[in-house]
């Protein structure tokens, strides 16, 4: 469904991403692993349109989306979370989630001004829906708190709920468990798995916690220095000698 072929990105002579190809099927799950600086997030940025690729192309359901503006790609159903949290700190938890559903609501100025019954109804429906999502990620009791007042674990769950409210076909998660202890990490991944199963969406996850990830996805690629060094089932990738070497090398350093 989502397919990237030979994507290259260079920053002033340094090749951050060098010929990366990947694919994920509808309802499929793909894990991306690799040491810091191996080009994982840059690859994400290319997929979501934030970073322009020097070469290569990205297709979604057969349609070429290379170089489209980020908000257009998002409207096609490709929604992401960020490695460094990017909530809307001065909005409430509920408003953050509602913003995720932005595209479903009528946005014409005159309709919002006059608010015919349909528009008012849509807003009510959205609020209920957002409340239900918050229930799902166990944040219902913080609904009217400001996002900036949440704990770290709560912000991660809020970001997930916000992304889910955009009804993605493909959800891209950039290190959803970063900075968490094992128990919290497992909880989040459980949540993601439950959500994915319920909604039947495709998932691409960048993650450092390789064992947890391996249990979770049905295919995996490993990046090092901007190149794909291994691709296949989680088992194949984790055992691949170059992956082992890359991770050992990182630990040695």
């Amino acid at each position, binding site marked *: 469904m989502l397919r990237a072929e030979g994507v290259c990105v260079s920053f002033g002579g340094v090749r951050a991403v060098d010929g990366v190809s990947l694919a994920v099927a509808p309802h499929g799950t793909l894990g991306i692993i690799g040491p810091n600086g191996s080009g994982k997030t840059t690859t994400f940025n290319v997929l979501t349109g934030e970073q322009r690729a020097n070469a290569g192309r990205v297709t979604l359901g057969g349609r070429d989306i290379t170089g489209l*503006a*980020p908000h257009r790609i998002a409207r096609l159903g490709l929604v992401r979370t960020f490695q460094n949290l990017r909530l809307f700190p001065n909005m409430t938890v509920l408003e953050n989630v509602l913003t995720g559903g932005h595209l479903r609501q009528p946005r014409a*100025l005159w309709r919002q001004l006059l608010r015919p019954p349909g528009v008012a109804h849509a807003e009510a429906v959205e609020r209920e829906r957002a409340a239900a999502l918050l229930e799902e990620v166990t944040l219902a009791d913080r609904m009217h708190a400001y996002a900036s007042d949440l704990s770290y674990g709560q912000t991660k769950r809020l970001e997930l709920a916000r992304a889910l409210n955009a009804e993605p076909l493909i959800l891209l998660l950039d290190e959803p468990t970063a900075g968490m202890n094992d128990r919290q990490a497992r909880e989040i991944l459980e949540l993601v798995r439950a959500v994915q199963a319920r909604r039947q969406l495709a998932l691409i996850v960048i993650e450092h916690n390789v064992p947890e990830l391996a249990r979770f996805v049905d295919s995996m690629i490993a990046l090092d220095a901007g190149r794909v060094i291994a691709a296949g089932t989680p088992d194949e990738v984790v055992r691949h000698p170059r992956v082992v070497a890359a991770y050992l090398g990182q630990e040695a350093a």
Partner: protein
Amino acid sequence: MLVARAGWPALAGIVLLIAIPLMVTDRYVLYVLNISMIFAILAIGQNIITGWCGMLTLGHAAFFGVGAYTSGLLAVDHGWPFLACFAAAGLAAGLAGALLSLPCLRVRSDFLSLITIAFAQMFFVVVNNWTELTRGPMGLPRIPRMEVFGWTARTEAEIFWVIGGVLAIVMFAVHRLVSGPIGRAWEAVRDDENAARALGINVTHAKVQAFTIGCVLAGFAGSLYAHTLRIVAPEMFFLEESLIIMQMAILGGLASLPGSLLGAALMVGIPEALRSGNEWLITLRPGIGGALLLAMMIWRPQGLLGRLRDAPPFLLALSAALRGLFVRRSRR
């Protein structure tokens, strides 16, 4: 219908709007209230741009001027009725805002600060020098009174009803916008552009939309101003006025409708109260205003009434009162 939708607070607001001029008989006090209400519309416009959408504009007074001159010239030179002038003023200011913001917001948003300063300066130069059209430095006198469907607002009380009516409609409409998806998109853009984009929000569109709506409100305010003072002159719309409008929006509270109301009332009312008072205080006024901006940014960037939860109790009470008057479900 209005009452059925917005409930008793709107009803109370309307009753007050009708009652105030009947209770306050001092024409001077009414005049000060009228000017405050015009500036409240300006502050709300600035607040949409700066408070809700996070852009700094330093030329709001120029859009105010575009509205005032459009309205005044159409009335004086072409004999248009007030309502047509009023609509044209909003349209002209909005058009100017859209044309200005479209190219520069595509690039980088802090260009907007520069471009609005440039626009304000060019506006002044043009109205001052294009003598054939604007009468230049002579100003444009003899602007007719406000007149609605054959009824003319002659006394300060009648002017109060017209301006107050416009302000009420503006607050009602802006409240609707900011409490729905459009306002949320603005706030999302203000808080984090990249995250907003990743959720499918067209950031440039949201910014241009917020900026244009802010300018339309400035245009409306300009029309009311022109037909209230019944003269417009170039220096009525200079940089200092832009700073005052911004101070109103910030002092009252960014992203707060009651805040803009309070900010305008304070910034118009306090100098009036001090008019025959202490000269030292008046000389110090810009400095006090500046210190206030600085202190607000450091300790209370949300303004007096912004983000109410953590406001001091007396402000909470005050704002609850204000909010009860005008909006039902204001969020902050």
